[in-house]
């Protein structure tokens, strides 16, 4: 699975994207977030309430099943204009 991080998350984690193999106990996007938060230095930034998840190019919920997902992206609050 391809994991991507955007904006300040990319800088805080010092990684833009990475390939991960899912453990069997990681079922939902929330499970993945918790696991990544524990795996990375500064990983707690992923646990902020303002962070959202994109699964296969769709903004999704933390309850969404990710077992068959190809890409998952974690995004901080957006700001265009």
């Amino acid at each position, binding site marked *: 699975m391809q994991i991507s991080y*955007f*904006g*300040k998350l*990319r*800088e805080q984690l010092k990684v833009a994207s990475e390939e991960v193999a899912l453990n069997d106990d990681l079922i939902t996007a929330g499970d993945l977030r918790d696991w990544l938060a524990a795996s990375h230095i500064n990983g707690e930034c992923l646990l902020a309430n*303002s962070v959202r998840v*994109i699964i296969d*190019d769709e*903004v999704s919920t933390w309850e969404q099943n990710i077992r068959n997902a190809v890409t998952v*992206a974690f*995004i*901080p*609050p*957006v*700001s*265009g*204009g």
Partner: protein
Amino acid sequence: MISIRSTSFNGARELSDFLNAPDNRGATASFIGTVRPGNDTQEVVSLFLEHHPTLSEKSVEQIAQDAGMKWNLIRYLIIHRIGLVDAGEDIVLVAATALHRRDAFDAVDFMMDHLKSEALFWKKQIMTDREEWIEPTQQDYQYKQRWSNHAGDR
């Protein structure tokens, strides 16, 4: 039309080109956002606009579609920069033509409010001595919220 660009654009010139195309408009409204050079306490050198390879443009398209559902627009144009945008450069242009002024005014206002806090971009302010990511303010969210019960004029 929507254009996400990694190179400089001149908002006034783009607006002029947009208006050169004939339509049966009775009104045009537009907004051009420019990177401020800062204020007395901090000098802004540039903004860095990070984008998602597929979803940034889609999110802008969705905002334009939503505006088109609410108001009677003839044409619209959104140009949004990505990458490094220096102070003084234009960062966004939103324009709309309509038969009547209220449709054009409100649609442009709506699109800008949603670009600020809904379009998938991430904005970093680069100053002479530091950098910081910019997130929407409470006021930005309130500006967007005021449209939630606005049925539009269609």
